[in-house]
């Protein structure tokens, strides 16, 4: 049971780390314009949180893309 839990947590965070690195590299600006004026090293501090809360941030990213497509 505990091993299953560890696998689930491991997979969740593995996806999160990949997501966080990719989003911090660029797309982060699409849902928070303040990031564009912020130093690059700030993104380093946002990465662990994005790895932890990646489903929420993925939702924001999708929402931001849909909004930008609207005429």
């Amino acid at each position: 049971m505990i091993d299953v839990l560890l696998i689930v947590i491991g997979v969740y965070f593995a996806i999160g780390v990949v997501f966080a690195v990719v989003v911090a590299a660029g797309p982060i600006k699409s849902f928070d314009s303040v990031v564009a004026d912020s130093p690059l090293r700030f993104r380093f501090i946002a990465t662990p949180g994005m790895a932890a809360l990646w489903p929420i941030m993925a939702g924001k990213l999708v929402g931001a893309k849909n909004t930008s497509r609207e005429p």
Partner: protein
Amino acid sequence: MSNRYVLVQWNRHKKIYDIVTLAGMVLFLTVYVGAGMIRHQSPSEISPPILLMRGFGVLSIVMLHIILSIGPLARIDERFSPLLYNRRHLGVMFFFAAFLHGFLVVGFYGGFGSVNPLSAILNSSGGGVPYELLGFMALIIFFVMAATSHDFWLANLGHRFWKAMHMCVYAAYTLVVLHVAFGAMQDKQGAVTPALLALGVVWLGGLHITAGLKQRKADVAVAEADAGWIDVCEVSEIPTSRARVVRQAGHEAIAVVNNEGTITAMSNVCAHQGGPLGEGQVIDGCLTCPWHGYQYDPATGCSPPPYTERVRTYEIRVEGGRVLLNPEPRGG
């Protein structure tokens, strides 16, 4: 205040706060490990790595109690208010102490076997209460809280969600208490650890209840004057450069501010992290949040330029020396 994100908004107070915290942590560990080595002369009793591991564990619990005490202490006695400022850094440093405790436990007890060390530790309770798992779950919650302590998260998750998420510290605290209590029982460490832990729980519970009762007493018991206006208090009851908080069912808490004799009213909820503006004071003409120093013009509710934070303001009338408040915000 922010119109761009930075890694850390350093200032003198924060630097002193962090240096004192770090020095305190190092001193605590040095004394704990040093005393342990003197007490357990033979390495076969308790080796230095185990002492260090336990030291980080005890340090984490002490820090957690300090962190959870700061809020109610500041409400009970405003001399503790400076400790509120930069509490986030204290929280992040606490997380690293707790992480190092867990890291050392996993590395020392599970690092020399053929199975996954974390799995080995979490499966090691042998039929008893899996206290290691409780600690692990608490650590995950603390990680999420530490990782989302930056203003970026407040802005992107929204104040309510962020606040609710960070209130999970009490759930994590419960897990930590169970982790330590069951761990001490299963390791047959005697009554000292459970007794100290119980003392900590009673201390925190007592502080929170005392602070709640004091706040309830300090908040203005509202009485409707006319046409929905609230009779707050005498003007003289609001000290200069301070505020009184008005709470009424169905309305947000409102801070009634005395700025050099001019009475105004604004939301009691700071736009930054929801700090209690009414517990702050007027500095440089602005009501200053006691938590992180965000400032608002008492007349307009706006932060001074270039900052863009804003809170709701309310109409005030002074009649016969009494302060009357319209609990409906200006502009609806």
